[in-house]
């Protein structure tokens, strides 16, 4: 699968840098004794030197808030993202594919857990973030508001959606906030595995019967533009970019990442023998990039604001799971309290 190994070696490099930085940090603790302006100066210095900000370090309130928003949204996406794929678990057409899909959806719950834990280091609770998700005050990725209508959609999600996710997330392995960077390293490794499995699923369909091939092409046709839109609005309209770049949370613009994704995916589509639904798609020799047609950002805005095909069902599903489970969580808490009392009395 062309283009994928480069991404993984970037993850490995980020991990090596992180280890090296941790070794350097053992020498002294600059933040503990500083106060006021010195704290801000120390923060700028650490970010400037590509070192990591850790939970107990001082940080600007806007940095903290921005990270909470971004990490929470990322965690919510993993959790809501279990639904479109989980939709095919009971119907997977072979036991091997069923096992792969089950393991993948399980990984997503695990990713959600790492990310909520990373967000909690910033002083918020998972329950608080859940509440914001369910009340619509925090978002999740627009892509999960599209329905999975055939088995091939499971492959298209793996290939395109996870592909877009890792292009987006690999730079975050080097982001300035340590807990987030470490979570992203683990997540990117697993995501690239999922992307390969999605590619393999589509590859098999593309070489199967006429019906299977048509199913694969139809899925790619439906998921291509929503996947391109995952990188967000064009640079000219993006609101969070400048500050995020200065703080080294974000390292590339939406359009740069989108281009990177198109370059990688166009080559992979050729290997698959499936068409990307863009007549303008073509390799541009002088620039070394693929030309492509931008997604409909009006549609992206409609989906983000709640009017995509599945927004209501996704939140309703999560709310029902949460509400139906309330008595279970209550009982677990009551049992834990009883155990504490018993231990204290013993």
């Amino acid at each position, binding site marked *: 699968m062309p283009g994928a190994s480069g991404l993984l070696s970037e993850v490995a490099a980020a991990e090596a840098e992180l280890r090296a930085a941790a070794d350097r940090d053992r020498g002294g603790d600059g933040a503990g004794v500083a106060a006021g302006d010195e704290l801000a100066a120390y923060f700028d210095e650490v970010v400037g030197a590509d070192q990591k900000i850790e939970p107990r370090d001082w940080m600007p309130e806007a940095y903290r808030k921005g990270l909470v928003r971004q990490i929470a949204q990322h965690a919510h996406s993993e*959790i809501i993202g*279990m*639904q479109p794929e*989980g939709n095919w*678990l*009971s*119907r*997977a*057409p*072979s*036991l*091997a*594919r*069923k*096992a792969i899909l*089950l*393991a993948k*959806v*399980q990984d997503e*719950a*695990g990713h*959600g*857990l790492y990310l*909520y834990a990373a967000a909690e280091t910033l002083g918020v609770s998972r329950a608080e973030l859940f509440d914001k998700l369910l009340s619509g005050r925090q978002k999740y990725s627009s892509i999960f508001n599209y329905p999975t209508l055939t*088995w091939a959609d499971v492959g298209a999600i793996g290939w395109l959606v996870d592909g877009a996710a890792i292009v987006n997330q690999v730079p975050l392995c080097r982001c300035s906030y340590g807990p987030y960077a470490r979570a992203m390293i683990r997540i990117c490794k697993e995501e690239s595995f999922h992307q390969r499995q999605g590619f393999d699923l589509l590859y*098999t*369909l593309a070489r*199967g*019967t006429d*019906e*299977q091939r048509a199913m694969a092409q139809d899925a790619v046709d439906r998921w291509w533009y929503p996947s391109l839109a995952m990188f967000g609005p064009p640079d000219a309209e993006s609101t969070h970019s400048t500050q995020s770049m200065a703080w080294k949370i974000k390292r590339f613009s939406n359009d740069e990442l989108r281009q990177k994704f198109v370059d990688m995916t166009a080559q992979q589509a050729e290997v698959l023998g499936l068409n990307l639904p863009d007549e303008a798609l073509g390799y541009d020799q002088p620039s070394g990039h693929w030309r492509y047609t931008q997604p409909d950002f009006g549609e992206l805005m409609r989906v983000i604001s709640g009017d995509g095909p599945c927004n209501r069902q996704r939140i309703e*599903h*999560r709310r*029902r*799971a949460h509400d*139906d*489970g*309330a*008595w*279970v*969580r*209550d*009982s*677990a*808490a*009551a*049992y*834990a309290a*009883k155990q504490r009392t018993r231990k204290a009395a013993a």
Partner: protein
Amino acid sequence: MRSDYVLALADDGLIAAQRLAEWTSRAPELEEDVALANIALDTLGQARLLLSYAGELEGAGRDEDDLAYLRDEQDFRNCQLVELDNGDFAVTIVKLLCFATYQHELYSALRRSTDERLAAIAAKAVTETEYHVDHARLWTLRLGDGTPEAHQRMTAALGRIWPYTHELFETGWIEPELLAEGVAVDPATLREPWLSTVDKVLVEATLAVPDDDWAPTGGRHGVHTEVMGYLLAEMQYLHRAHPGATW
């Protein structure tokens, strides 16, 4: 036939996995989404090993997918317990406690099977089922000895599930030669250790073994409950819609 015995054990795991996977994205906690998917993956993995082996023993060229997707309801040999609807979380936990404890006893004994392949599969499965039993045990304690509502739901779940546990220990469906040769384990011998484990957990959870005089049965002979047809319709539809396709 030896393949029928292996198939019954395989079907237990396959159908249990199908039901457990229905919980994915619906569990009370994210941790539980991970745990239930994990258990489903284990029982699915056991089912795949057993199905492949059953296919080889049968010698008709059927692989794991032929056996999972192209048999009708009457040809499935799983116990009825695993096919029952998930119900609320209490029903799922009671089912898991009863089934995992049974599987744990079965695989522990089957490690000494004179059939080497079965013994090897059992050796792998037994460590997995140990974890499943522990998970079900901890939830039984939290729900039985937690809030009054959870206690009441667990009592109701036990009443609903318990009658189906009797089928797990039936012996009649296994050919006597398999038992005599030490290939198969006599399920009747598992009932006592099973009951002692389950009863201990229930007592600690302030729950009681329900009184019952109903012992529904039939799964080992292909006679299932009404929910089985729906389960298979959903599981098999795509595979059946594309005969001969590779996935």
